[in-house]
Protein backbone atom coordinates (compact mmCIF):
# COMPACT_ATOMS: atom_id res chain seq x y z
CA UNK A 1 0.00 0.00 0.00
CA UNK A 2 1.24 3.41 -0.66
CA UNK A 3 1.55 5.85 2.11
CA UNK A 4 -0.82 8.78 2.37
CA UNK A 5 1.46 11.77 2.46
CA UNK A 6 0.79 15.43 2.90
CA UNK A 7 0.37 15.94 -0.80
CA UNK A 8 -2.60 13.66 -1.03
CA UNK A 9 -4.43 15.79 1.46
CA UNK A 10 -3.46 18.95 -0.33
CA UNK A 11 -4.67 17.62 -3.65
CA UNK A 12 -7.90 16.46 -2.06
CA UNK A 13 -8.50 19.85 -0.55
CA UNK A 14 -7.78 21.51 -3.87
CA UNK A 15 -10.28 19.24 -5.61
CA UNK A 16 -12.90 20.01 -2.99
CA UNK A 17 -12.12 23.70 -3.34
CA UNK A 18 -12.57 23.52 -7.10
CA UNK A 19 -15.79 21.56 -6.77
CA UNK A 20 -17.09 24.10 -4.29
CA UNK A 21 -16.24 27.05 -6.47
CA UNK A 22 -17.66 25.52 -9.59
CA UNK A 23 -20.77 24.85 -7.55
CA UNK A 24 -20.94 28.50 -6.57
CA UNK A 25 -20.63 29.59 -10.16
CA UNK A 26 -23.02 27.09 -11.66
CA UNK A 27 -25.83 26.55 -9.17
CA UNK A 28 -29.17 28.04 -9.96
CA UNK A 29 -30.56 27.79 -6.49
CA UNK A 30 -29.04 30.13 -3.93
CA UNK A 31 -29.26 27.53 -1.15
CA UNK A 32 -26.98 25.38 -3.25
CA UNK A 33 -24.59 28.34 -3.43
CA UNK A 34 -24.55 28.51 0.36
CA UNK A 35 -23.86 24.81 0.62
CA UNK A 36 -21.01 25.13 -1.85
CA UNK A 37 -19.53 27.95 0.24
CA UNK A 38 -19.54 25.53 3.13
CA UNK A 39 -17.76 22.95 0.98
CA UNK A 40 -15.08 25.47 0.16
CA UNK A 41 -14.59 26.39 3.79
CA UNK A 42 -14.30 22.73 4.71
CA UNK A 43 -11.68 22.26 2.07
CA UNK A 44 -9.66 25.05 3.62
CA UNK A 45 -10.11 23.45 7.01
CA UNK A 46 -8.72 20.23 5.63
CA UNK A 47 -5.75 22.14 4.33
CA UNK A 48 -4.93 23.62 7.71
CA UNK A 49 -5.34 20.41 9.59
CA UNK A 50 -3.23 18.48 7.12
CA UNK A 51 -0.41 20.96 7.49
CA UNK A 52 -0.59 20.79 11.24
CA UNK A 53 -0.61 17.03 11.30
CA UNK A 54 2.15 16.32 8.87
CA UNK A 55 4.69 18.97 9.62
CA UNK A 56 6.16 19.20 13.04
CA UNK A 57 5.81 22.84 13.65
CA UNK A 58 6.28 24.44 16.99
CA UNK A 59 2.81 25.90 17.34
CA UNK A 60 -0.50 24.27 16.62
CA UNK A 61 -1.88 27.41 15.12
CA UNK A 62 -3.36 25.54 12.21
CA UNK A 63 -5.80 23.60 14.30
CA UNK A 64 -6.90 26.69 16.16
CA UNK A 65 -7.42 28.47 12.91
CA UNK A 66 -9.51 25.54 11.68
CA UNK A 67 -11.81 25.91 14.67
CA UNK A 68 -12.25 29.59 14.03
CA UNK A 69 -12.94 29.01 10.38
CA UNK A 70 -15.66 26.54 11.21
CA UNK A 71 -17.32 28.97 13.55
CA UNK A 72 -17.18 31.87 11.17
CA UNK A 73 -18.43 29.95 8.19
CA UNK A 74 -21.38 28.94 10.34
CA UNK A 75 -22.04 32.63 11.00
CA UNK A 76 -21.85 33.41 7.32
CA UNK A 77 -24.25 30.67 6.44
CA UNK A 78 -26.67 31.84 9.09
CA UNK A 79 -26.70 35.37 7.77
CA UNK A 80 -26.99 34.05 4.26
CA UNK A 81 -30.08 32.10 5.24
CA UNK A 82 -31.63 35.15 6.85
CA UNK A 83 -31.10 37.24 3.75
CA UNK A 84 -32.38 34.49 1.47
CA UNK A 85 -35.48 34.15 3.57
CA UNK A 86 -36.13 37.88 3.35
CA UNK A 87 -35.99 37.73 -0.42
CA UNK A 88 -38.00 34.51 -0.51
CA UNK A 89 -40.87 36.15 1.33
CA UNK A 90 -41.62 38.46 -1.58
CA UNK A 91 -40.75 36.26 -4.49
CA UNK A 92 -41.90 32.70 -4.58
CA UNK A 93 -38.66 31.10 -5.58
CA UNK A 94 -35.08 31.98 -4.98
CA UNK A 95 -32.79 31.40 -7.89
CA UNK A 96 -29.97 33.41 -9.20
CA UNK A 97 -32.18 34.94 -11.85
CA UNK A 98 -34.41 36.50 -9.24
CA UNK A 99 -31.65 38.65 -7.86
CA UNK A 100 -30.61 40.30 -11.09
CA UNK A 101 -32.29 43.63 -10.64
CA UNK A 102 -29.24 45.75 -9.99
CA UNK A 103 -27.33 45.80 -13.19
CA UNK A 104 -25.51 47.99 -15.65
Amino acid at each position, binding site marked *: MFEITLYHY*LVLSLIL*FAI*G*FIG*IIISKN*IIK*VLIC*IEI*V*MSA*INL*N*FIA*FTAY*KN*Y*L*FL*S*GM*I*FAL*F*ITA*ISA*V*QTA*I*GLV*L*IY*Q*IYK*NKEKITSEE*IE*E*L*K*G
Partner: protein
Amino acid sequence: MEIIKDIQNAYLPELILFIFIILNIIFSFFIKKNTYKISKITTLLAIALSGLSIFFIQINPTYKAFNDVYISNIYTTAFKIMILISGLLIILSSQSFIREKRQKSYEFFSIFLTGILSAFSIISSNDFISAFISIELLSVCCYFLTSFRRNHKSKEAALKYLITGASSSAIFLLGISYLYGITGNINFSDISDVISTSGINIMFIITCILIISALTFKLGCIPFNNWIIDIYEGSTYGVGTYLSLIPKIAAIGLISRLFVFIFSYSPIIQILTAIIALCSIIYSAIGGVNQTNIKRLYAYSSILHSGFLLLAASCVSVYGFSCLIFYIFTYIFMNIGIWNAAIIYTTNYQSDEIIDYKGIFYKNPYFSIAYTICLISLAGLPPTSGFLSKLYLFSALSREDFTYLIILFLTLCATVISLFLYFKMIKVIYEKNSQDTKIIKNITIGKIILYICSIITILICIYPNEFIKLSQIIAYYI
Protein backbone atom coordinates in the same frame (compact mmCIF):
# COMPACT_ATOMS: atom_id res chain seq x y z
CA MET B 1 -2.69 40.20 35.14
CA GLU B 2 -1.47 40.35 31.63
CA ILE B 3 -4.83 41.04 30.11
CA ILE B 4 -5.50 44.14 32.14
CA LYS B 5 -2.08 45.49 31.41
CA ASP B 6 -2.60 44.82 27.73
CA ILE B 7 -5.97 46.46 27.71
CA GLN B 8 -4.67 49.47 29.49
CA ASN B 9 -1.78 49.89 27.14
CA ALA B 10 -3.23 49.03 23.80
CA TYR B 11 -6.86 48.06 23.71
CA LEU B 12 -8.54 51.01 25.38
CA PRO B 13 -10.28 52.58 22.33
CA GLU B 14 -11.74 49.28 21.28
CA LEU B 15 -12.90 48.54 24.79
CA ILE B 16 -14.76 51.83 24.96
CA LEU B 17 -16.42 51.12 21.65
CA PHE B 18 -17.39 47.69 22.88
CA ILE B 19 -18.92 49.12 26.05
CA PHE B 20 -20.97 51.58 24.06
CA ILE B 21 -22.18 48.89 21.67
CA ILE B 22 -23.49 46.92 24.59
CA LEU B 23 -24.96 50.10 26.05
CA ASN B 24 -26.81 50.72 22.81
CA ILE B 25 -28.23 47.22 22.81
CA ILE B 26 -29.29 47.51 26.45
CA PHE B 27 -30.97 50.86 25.77
CA SER B 28 -32.90 49.31 22.94
CA PHE B 29 -34.65 47.09 25.43
CA PHE B 30 -35.58 49.73 27.92
CA ILE B 31 -35.84 53.15 26.37
CA LYS B 32 -38.63 53.43 23.88
CA LYS B 33 -39.00 57.15 23.41
CA ASN B 34 -36.57 59.42 21.61
CA THR B 35 -34.74 56.43 20.30
CA TYR B 36 -33.01 58.27 17.53
CA LYS B 37 -31.64 61.04 19.70
CA ILE B 38 -30.37 58.80 22.45
CA SER B 39 -28.70 56.36 20.11
CA LYS B 40 -27.07 59.18 18.18
CA ILE B 41 -25.76 60.77 21.34
CA THR B 42 -24.36 57.49 22.60
CA THR B 43 -22.63 56.86 19.31
CA LEU B 44 -21.12 60.31 19.16
CA LEU B 45 -20.02 59.93 22.75
CA ALA B 46 -18.48 56.59 21.90
CA ILE B 47 -16.49 58.05 19.06
CA ALA B 48 -15.36 61.04 21.10
CA LEU B 49 -14.30 59.00 24.11
CA SER B 50 -12.56 56.44 21.98
CA GLY B 51 -10.68 59.22 20.22
CA LEU B 52 -9.70 60.69 23.57
CA SER B 53 -8.52 57.37 24.89
CA ILE B 54 -6.06 57.10 22.05
CA PHE B 55 -3.94 59.54 23.99
CA PHE B 56 -3.74 57.13 26.88
CA ILE B 57 -2.44 54.08 25.15
CA GLN B 58 1.16 53.41 24.50
CA ILE B 59 2.11 54.39 21.03
CA ASN B 60 5.71 55.08 20.68
CA PRO B 61 7.64 51.93 21.19
CA THR B 62 5.45 49.42 19.48
CA TYR B 63 3.33 47.60 21.99
CA LYS B 64 2.31 44.08 21.17
CA ALA B 65 -0.67 42.98 23.17
CA PHE B 66 -2.48 39.69 23.74
CA ASN B 67 0.50 37.52 23.03
CA ASP B 68 1.74 39.31 19.93
CA VAL B 69 -1.62 39.27 18.22
CA TYR B 70 -2.48 42.91 18.58
CA ILE B 71 -0.20 45.80 17.73
CA SER B 72 -0.35 49.41 18.77
CA ASN B 73 2.01 51.91 17.22
CA ILE B 74 1.94 55.30 15.58
CA TYR B 75 0.97 53.98 12.17
CA THR B 76 -2.04 52.05 13.37
CA THR B 77 -3.11 54.89 15.60
CA ALA B 78 -3.06 57.28 12.67
CA PHE B 79 -5.37 55.00 10.76
CA LYS B 80 -7.65 54.68 13.74
CA ILE B 81 -7.88 58.43 14.07
CA MET B 82 -8.78 58.69 10.40
CA ILE B 83 -11.48 56.07 10.80
CA LEU B 84 -12.90 57.92 13.80
CA ILE B 85 -12.96 61.22 11.91
CA SER B 86 -14.74 59.63 8.98
CA GLY B 87 -17.19 57.87 11.32
CA LEU B 88 -18.01 61.15 13.01
CA LEU B 89 -18.61 62.95 9.74
CA ILE B 90 -20.72 60.09 8.42
CA ILE B 91 -23.02 60.13 11.42
CA LEU B 92 -23.45 63.86 11.22
CA SER B 93 -24.22 63.80 7.55
CA SER B 94 -26.56 60.86 7.19
CA GLN B 95 -29.07 61.86 9.80
CA SER B 96 -32.08 62.18 7.62
CA PHE B 97 -31.94 58.58 6.54
CA ILE B 98 -31.69 57.01 9.91
CA ARG B 99 -34.35 59.22 11.34
CA GLU B 100 -36.98 57.40 9.31
CA LYS B 101 -36.49 54.16 11.10
CA ARG B 102 -37.31 55.14 14.65
CA GLN B 103 -37.36 51.78 16.27
CA LYS B 104 -34.40 50.46 14.43
CA SER B 105 -31.94 53.25 15.03
CA TYR B 106 -30.37 51.39 17.94
CA GLU B 107 -29.60 48.51 15.66
CA PHE B 108 -28.13 50.80 13.08
CA PHE B 109 -25.84 52.51 15.50
CA SER B 110 -24.71 49.33 17.21
CA ILE B 111 -23.79 47.79 13.91
CA PHE B 112 -22.12 51.02 12.88
CA LEU B 113 -19.95 50.95 15.98
CA THR B 114 -19.24 47.26 15.54
CA GLY B 115 -17.98 48.02 12.07
CA ILE B 116 -15.65 50.66 13.43
CA LEU B 117 -14.47 48.28 16.13
CA SER B 118 -13.71 45.60 13.59
CA ALA B 119 -11.90 48.13 11.40
CA PHE B 120 -9.70 48.95 14.37
CA SER B 121 -8.99 45.27 14.84
CA ILE B 122 -8.10 44.78 11.20
CA ILE B 123 -5.58 47.58 11.29
CA SER B 124 -3.94 46.54 14.52
CA SER B 125 -3.80 42.85 13.87
CA ASN B 126 -0.44 41.16 13.86
CA ASP B 127 -1.72 37.71 13.16
CA PHE B 128 -3.71 36.10 10.41
CA ILE B 129 -6.35 34.67 12.71
CA SER B 130 -7.24 38.03 14.14
CA ALA B 131 -7.09 39.63 10.70
CA PHE B 132 -9.47 37.04 9.30
CA ILE B 133 -11.93 37.26 12.17
CA SER B 134 -11.96 41.04 12.05
CA ILE B 135 -12.49 41.04 8.29
CA GLU B 136 -15.40 38.67 8.70
CA LEU B 137 -16.86 40.80 11.46
CA LEU B 138 -16.61 43.91 9.28
CA SER B 139 -18.22 42.03 6.42
CA VAL B 140 -21.10 40.89 8.59
CA CYS B 141 -21.69 44.43 9.77
CA CYS B 142 -21.66 45.63 6.20
CA TYR B 143 -24.14 42.95 5.15
CA PHE B 144 -26.55 44.21 7.77
CA LEU B 145 -26.04 47.84 6.93
CA THR B 146 -26.57 47.24 3.25
CA SER B 147 -29.90 45.59 3.82
CA PHE B 148 -31.06 48.16 6.30
CA ARG B 149 -33.67 49.74 4.15
CA ARG B 150 -36.05 46.90 3.56
CA ASN B 151 -36.77 47.05 -0.11
CA HIS B 152 -35.94 44.43 -2.61
CA LYS B 153 -32.91 46.16 -4.01
CA SER B 154 -31.19 46.39 -0.67
CA LYS B 155 -31.80 42.75 0.16
CA GLU B 156 -30.53 41.71 -3.21
CA ALA B 157 -27.48 43.90 -2.75
CA ALA B 158 -26.79 42.34 0.65
CA LEU B 159 -27.07 38.84 -0.76
CA LYS B 160 -24.68 39.67 -3.55
CA TYR B 161 -22.30 41.15 -1.02
CA LEU B 162 -22.50 37.98 1.00
CA ILE B 163 -21.77 35.61 -1.82
CA THR B 164 -18.88 37.65 -3.15
CA GLY B 165 -17.55 38.16 0.34
CA ALA B 166 -17.68 34.48 1.08
CA SER B 167 -15.78 33.61 -2.08
CA SER B 168 -13.13 36.20 -1.34
CA SER B 169 -12.76 34.91 2.21
CA ALA B 170 -12.29 31.46 0.76
CA ILE B 171 -9.44 32.60 -1.43
CA PHE B 172 -7.95 34.55 1.47
CA LEU B 173 -7.99 31.43 3.61
CA LEU B 174 -6.48 29.36 0.84
CA GLY B 175 -3.59 31.76 0.67
CA ILE B 176 -3.16 31.79 4.42
CA SER B 177 -3.23 28.02 4.61
CA TYR B 178 -0.46 27.70 2.05
CA LEU B 179 1.51 30.36 3.86
CA TYR B 180 1.06 28.39 7.04
CA GLY B 181 2.22 25.34 5.21
CA ILE B 182 5.38 27.03 4.01
CA THR B 183 6.37 28.77 7.20
CA GLY B 184 4.54 27.20 10.10
CA ASN B 185 3.47 30.41 11.77
CA ILE B 186 0.62 32.75 11.34
CA ASN B 187 2.05 35.73 13.10
CA PHE B 188 3.32 38.40 10.72
CA SER B 189 6.65 38.96 12.41
CA ASP B 190 7.30 35.24 12.80
CA ILE B 191 6.50 34.59 9.15
CA SER B 192 8.79 37.40 8.20
CA ASP B 193 11.60 35.88 10.25
CA VAL B 194 11.16 32.45 8.73
CA ILE B 195 11.11 33.72 5.17
CA SER B 196 14.13 35.91 5.61
CA THR B 197 16.14 32.90 6.73
CA SER B 198 14.84 30.37 4.24
CA GLY B 199 14.37 31.60 0.71
CA ILE B 200 11.30 32.30 -1.34
CA ASN B 201 9.93 29.99 -3.93
CA ILE B 202 7.18 29.97 -6.46
CA MET B 203 4.65 28.70 -3.97
CA PHE B 204 5.25 31.71 -1.77
CA ILE B 205 4.62 34.09 -4.62
CA ILE B 206 1.39 32.34 -5.57
CA THR B 207 0.27 32.47 -1.96
CA CYS B 208 0.94 36.14 -1.65
CA ILE B 209 -0.97 36.86 -4.83
CA LEU B 210 -3.94 34.97 -3.47
CA ILE B 211 -3.86 36.95 -0.26
CA ILE B 212 -3.62 40.27 -2.04
CA SER B 213 -6.39 39.42 -4.45
CA ALA B 214 -8.67 38.49 -1.62
CA LEU B 215 -7.91 41.68 0.23
CA THR B 216 -8.81 43.72 -2.84
CA PHE B 217 -12.33 42.63 -2.19
CA LYS B 218 -12.67 45.01 0.71
CA LEU B 219 -10.73 47.70 -1.10
CA GLY B 220 -12.54 47.49 -4.33
CA CYS B 221 -9.82 46.76 -6.82
CA ILE B 222 -9.70 44.50 -9.80
CA PRO B 223 -10.35 40.87 -9.13
CA PHE B 224 -13.25 41.57 -6.82
CA ASN B 225 -14.68 44.87 -7.84
CA ASN B 226 -17.99 43.93 -9.40
CA TRP B 227 -19.92 43.94 -6.19
CA ILE B 228 -19.18 47.58 -5.40
CA ILE B 229 -21.19 48.97 -8.24
CA ASP B 230 -24.34 47.06 -7.42
CA ILE B 231 -24.08 47.35 -3.66
CA TYR B 232 -23.64 51.11 -3.70
CA GLU B 233 -26.72 51.40 -5.83
CA GLY B 234 -28.74 49.16 -3.56
CA SER B 235 -27.90 50.73 -0.22
CA THR B 236 -28.88 54.08 1.19
CA TYR B 237 -26.64 57.09 0.87
CA GLY B 238 -25.44 57.07 4.45
CA VAL B 239 -24.48 53.44 4.19
CA GLY B 240 -22.86 54.15 0.85
CA THR B 241 -20.63 56.72 2.49
CA TYR B 242 -19.78 54.24 5.20
CA LEU B 243 -18.96 51.50 2.72
CA SER B 244 -16.80 53.73 0.62
CA LEU B 245 -14.61 54.81 3.49
CA ILE B 246 -14.27 52.45 6.39
CA PRO B 247 -13.60 49.06 4.79
CA LYS B 248 -11.24 50.80 2.40
CA ILE B 249 -9.15 52.41 5.11
CA ALA B 250 -9.05 49.21 7.12
CA ALA B 251 -8.09 47.08 4.14
CA ILE B 252 -5.37 49.38 2.91
CA GLY B 253 -3.97 49.59 6.44
CA LEU B 254 -3.74 45.83 6.54
CA ILE B 255 -2.30 45.55 3.04
CA SER B 256 0.38 48.13 3.73
CA ARG B 257 1.44 46.36 6.90
CA LEU B 258 1.48 43.05 5.09
CA PHE B 259 3.66 44.62 2.44
CA VAL B 260 6.21 45.61 5.01
CA PHE B 261 6.31 42.25 6.73
CA ILE B 262 5.67 39.66 4.11
CA PHE B 263 5.36 40.90 0.60
CA SER B 264 8.53 42.87 0.38
CA TYR B 265 10.70 39.83 -0.18
CA SER B 266 9.99 39.61 -3.86
CA PRO B 267 9.75 42.46 -6.34
CA ILE B 268 7.39 40.49 -8.55
CA ILE B 269 4.65 40.83 -5.96
CA GLN B 270 5.09 44.58 -5.91
CA ILE B 271 4.91 44.86 -9.65
CA LEU B 272 1.89 42.57 -9.86
CA THR B 273 0.10 44.61 -7.23
CA ALA B 274 0.90 47.75 -9.15
CA ILE B 275 -0.49 46.16 -12.31
CA ILE B 276 -3.66 45.14 -10.48
CA ALA B 277 -4.06 48.70 -9.23
CA LEU B 278 -3.45 50.08 -12.70
CA CYS B 279 -6.04 47.76 -14.20
CA SER B 280 -8.63 48.85 -11.69
CA ILE B 281 -7.89 52.52 -12.39
CA ILE B 282 -8.32 51.98 -16.11
CA TYR B 283 -11.41 49.84 -15.58
CA SER B 284 -13.14 52.42 -13.46
CA ALA B 285 -12.07 55.33 -15.63
CA ILE B 286 -13.49 53.75 -18.77
CA GLY B 287 -16.45 52.09 -17.12
CA GLY B 288 -17.76 55.20 -15.48
CA VAL B 289 -18.28 57.01 -18.76
CA ASN B 290 -21.72 55.65 -19.46
CA GLN B 291 -23.37 55.92 -16.10
CA THR B 292 -26.63 57.67 -15.50
CA ASN B 293 -27.17 56.82 -11.88
CA ILE B 294 -25.33 58.94 -9.39
CA LYS B 295 -24.62 56.14 -6.94
CA ARG B 296 -23.04 54.04 -9.64
CA LEU B 297 -20.93 57.03 -10.63
CA TYR B 298 -19.76 57.34 -7.05
CA ALA B 299 -19.04 53.61 -7.03
CA TYR B 300 -16.79 53.89 -10.06
CA SER B 301 -15.05 56.84 -8.47
CA SER B 302 -14.56 54.77 -5.34
CA ILE B 303 -12.91 52.00 -7.38
CA LEU B 304 -10.68 54.59 -9.01
CA HIS B 305 -9.39 55.89 -5.74
CA SER B 306 -8.91 52.40 -4.34
CA GLY B 307 -6.68 51.80 -7.33
CA PHE B 308 -4.60 54.83 -6.43
CA LEU B 309 -4.35 53.73 -2.82
CA LEU B 310 -3.17 50.28 -3.80
CA LEU B 311 -0.65 51.84 -6.16
CA ALA B 312 0.67 53.96 -3.32
CA ALA B 313 0.94 50.95 -1.03
CA SER B 314 2.74 48.90 -3.65
CA CYS B 315 5.83 51.06 -3.71
CA VAL B 316 7.23 49.81 -0.48
CA SER B 317 9.14 52.81 0.71
CA VAL B 318 8.67 55.53 3.27
CA TYR B 319 7.52 57.81 0.45
CA GLY B 320 4.93 55.33 -0.66
CA PHE B 321 3.42 54.93 2.76
CA SER B 322 3.51 58.60 3.64
CA CYS B 323 1.83 59.29 0.34
CA LEU B 324 -0.77 56.71 1.29
CA ILE B 325 -1.58 58.40 4.57
CA PHE B 326 -1.78 61.83 2.98
CA TYR B 327 -4.00 60.48 0.21
CA ILE B 328 -6.40 58.85 2.64
CA PHE B 329 -6.58 61.98 4.72
CA THR B 330 -7.50 64.19 1.79
CA TYR B 331 -9.75 61.50 0.33
CA ILE B 332 -11.91 61.36 3.45
CA PHE B 333 -12.96 64.96 3.10
CA MET B 334 -13.51 64.92 -0.63
CA ASN B 335 -15.54 61.76 -0.45
CA ILE B 336 -17.74 62.88 2.41
CA GLY B 337 -18.23 66.14 0.55
CA ILE B 338 -19.67 64.53 -2.56
CA TRP B 339 -21.75 61.96 -0.75
CA ASN B 340 -23.10 64.69 1.46
CA ALA B 341 -24.12 66.74 -1.53
CA ALA B 342 -25.97 63.72 -2.90
CA ILE B 343 -27.64 63.16 0.48
CA ILE B 344 -28.79 66.77 0.65
CA TYR B 345 -30.23 66.63 -2.83
CA THR B 346 -31.90 63.27 -2.37
CA THR B 347 -33.55 64.25 0.90
CA ASN B 348 -35.36 66.95 -1.02
CA TYR B 349 -36.11 65.25 -4.26
CA GLN B 350 -35.69 61.46 -3.88
CA SER B 351 -34.03 60.91 -7.18
CA ASP B 352 -30.96 58.97 -8.11
CA GLU B 353 -30.40 60.06 -11.64
CA ILE B 354 -27.66 62.43 -12.70
CA ILE B 355 -29.96 64.28 -15.07
CA ASP B 356 -32.04 65.55 -12.20
CA TYR B 357 -29.10 67.56 -10.95
CA LYS B 358 -29.37 69.76 -13.99
CA GLY B 359 -28.67 73.40 -13.44
CA ILE B 360 -28.70 73.50 -9.67
CA PHE B 361 -26.08 76.21 -9.79
CA TYR B 362 -28.54 78.85 -10.78
CA LYS B 363 -30.79 78.41 -7.80
CA ASN B 364 -28.34 77.14 -5.18
CA PRO B 365 -25.03 78.79 -5.90
CA TYR B 366 -23.08 78.12 -2.72
CA PHE B 367 -24.10 74.48 -2.64
CA SER B 368 -22.97 73.91 -6.20
CA ILE B 369 -19.71 75.73 -5.71
CA ALA B 370 -18.85 73.58 -2.68
CA TYR B 371 -19.90 70.46 -4.59
CA THR B 372 -17.81 71.47 -7.58
CA ILE B 373 -14.79 72.03 -5.38
CA CYS B 374 -15.09 68.49 -4.01
CA LEU B 375 -15.54 67.06 -7.52
CA ILE B 376 -12.55 68.95 -8.86
CA SER B 377 -10.51 67.70 -5.93
CA LEU B 378 -11.43 64.11 -6.73
CA ALA B 379 -10.45 64.68 -10.33
CA GLY B 380 -7.10 66.02 -9.24
CA LEU B 381 -6.94 69.58 -10.55
CA PRO B 382 -4.82 72.37 -9.09
CA PRO B 383 -6.11 74.58 -6.44
CA THR B 384 -7.36 71.63 -4.42
CA SER B 385 -5.78 68.99 -2.25
CA GLY B 386 -6.56 66.14 -4.64
CA PHE B 387 -3.98 67.59 -6.98
CA LEU B 388 -1.33 67.61 -4.27
CA SER B 389 -2.03 64.06 -3.19
CA LYS B 390 -1.84 62.81 -6.77
CA LEU B 391 1.35 64.82 -7.32
CA TYR B 392 2.85 63.26 -4.24
CA LEU B 393 1.78 59.81 -5.44
CA PHE B 394 3.36 60.29 -8.84
CA SER B 395 6.58 61.55 -7.32
CA ALA B 396 6.70 58.53 -5.02
CA LEU B 397 6.12 56.25 -8.02
CA SER B 398 8.85 57.87 -10.04
CA ARG B 399 11.44 56.97 -7.47
CA GLU B 400 11.08 53.27 -8.05
CA ASP B 401 12.69 51.33 -10.83
CA PHE B 402 11.99 51.22 -14.48
CA THR B 403 8.78 49.24 -14.69
CA TYR B 404 7.19 51.76 -12.43
CA LEU B 405 7.83 54.46 -14.98
CA ILE B 406 5.70 52.62 -17.51
CA ILE B 407 3.04 52.18 -14.87
CA LEU B 408 3.28 55.87 -14.07
CA PHE B 409 2.76 56.81 -17.66
CA LEU B 410 -0.28 54.59 -17.99
CA THR B 411 -1.68 55.94 -14.74
CA LEU B 412 -1.38 59.45 -16.10
CA CYS B 413 -3.34 58.44 -19.19
CA ALA B 414 -5.97 56.81 -17.03
CA THR B 415 -6.22 59.91 -14.84
CA VAL B 416 -6.95 61.98 -17.91
CA ILE B 417 -9.75 59.62 -18.90
CA SER B 418 -11.12 59.63 -15.38
CA LEU B 419 -11.48 63.40 -15.53
CA PHE B 420 -14.45 62.69 -17.70
CA LEU B 421 -16.32 61.03 -14.87
CA TYR B 422 -16.23 64.11 -12.75
CA PHE B 423 -16.67 66.63 -15.48
CA LYS B 424 -19.83 64.92 -16.55
CA MET B 425 -21.25 65.76 -13.16
CA ILE B 426 -19.90 69.32 -13.24
CA LYS B 427 -21.32 69.91 -16.69
CA VAL B 428 -24.73 68.79 -15.53
CA ILE B 429 -24.63 71.12 -12.55
CA TYR B 430 -23.92 74.17 -14.68
CA GLU B 431 -26.29 73.44 -17.53
CA LYS B 432 -28.18 76.53 -18.30
CA ASN B 433 -31.39 76.09 -20.13
CA SER B 434 -33.39 73.95 -17.79
CA GLN B 435 -36.73 75.13 -16.63
CA ASP B 436 -37.04 72.69 -13.85
CA THR B 437 -34.05 73.35 -11.67
CA LYS B 438 -34.68 72.47 -8.11
CA ILE B 439 -34.23 74.57 -5.08
CA ILE B 440 -32.69 72.85 -2.13
CA LYS B 441 -34.39 73.70 1.09
CA ASN B 442 -32.56 74.01 4.31
CA ILE B 443 -30.74 71.00 5.53
CA THR B 444 -28.39 72.79 7.80
CA ILE B 445 -26.03 70.21 9.12
CA GLY B 446 -25.51 68.53 5.79
CA LYS B 447 -24.72 71.83 4.14
CA ILE B 448 -22.38 72.84 6.94
CA ILE B 449 -20.45 69.62 6.59
CA LEU B 450 -20.28 70.06 2.83
CA TYR B 451 -18.89 73.57 3.19
CA ILE B 452 -16.43 72.47 5.84
CA CYS B 453 -15.20 69.66 3.61
CA SER B 454 -14.70 71.89 0.63
CA ILE B 455 -12.93 74.55 2.69
CA ILE B 456 -10.63 71.95 4.23
CA THR B 457 -9.88 70.67 0.75
CA ILE B 458 -8.66 74.07 -0.34
CA LEU B 459 -6.88 74.77 2.95
CA ILE B 460 -4.87 71.60 2.66
CA CYS B 461 -3.67 72.83 -0.68
CA ILE B 462 -2.58 76.18 0.70
CA TYR B 463 -0.64 74.83 3.69
CA PRO B 464 0.30 71.29 2.82
CA ASN B 465 3.64 71.15 4.53
CA GLU B 466 2.56 70.23 8.01
CA PHE B 467 0.40 67.40 6.74
CA ILE B 468 3.11 66.05 4.49
CA LYS B 469 5.69 66.14 7.26
CA LEU B 470 3.25 64.49 9.63
CA SER B 471 2.51 61.72 7.19
CA GLN B 472 6.21 61.16 6.60
CA ILE B 473 6.81 60.83 10.33
CA ILE B 474 3.90 58.43 10.70
CA ALA B 475 4.97 56.27 7.80
CA TYR B 476 8.41 55.91 9.21
CA TYR B 477 7.02 53.96 12.12
CA ILE B 478 5.20 51.32 10.17
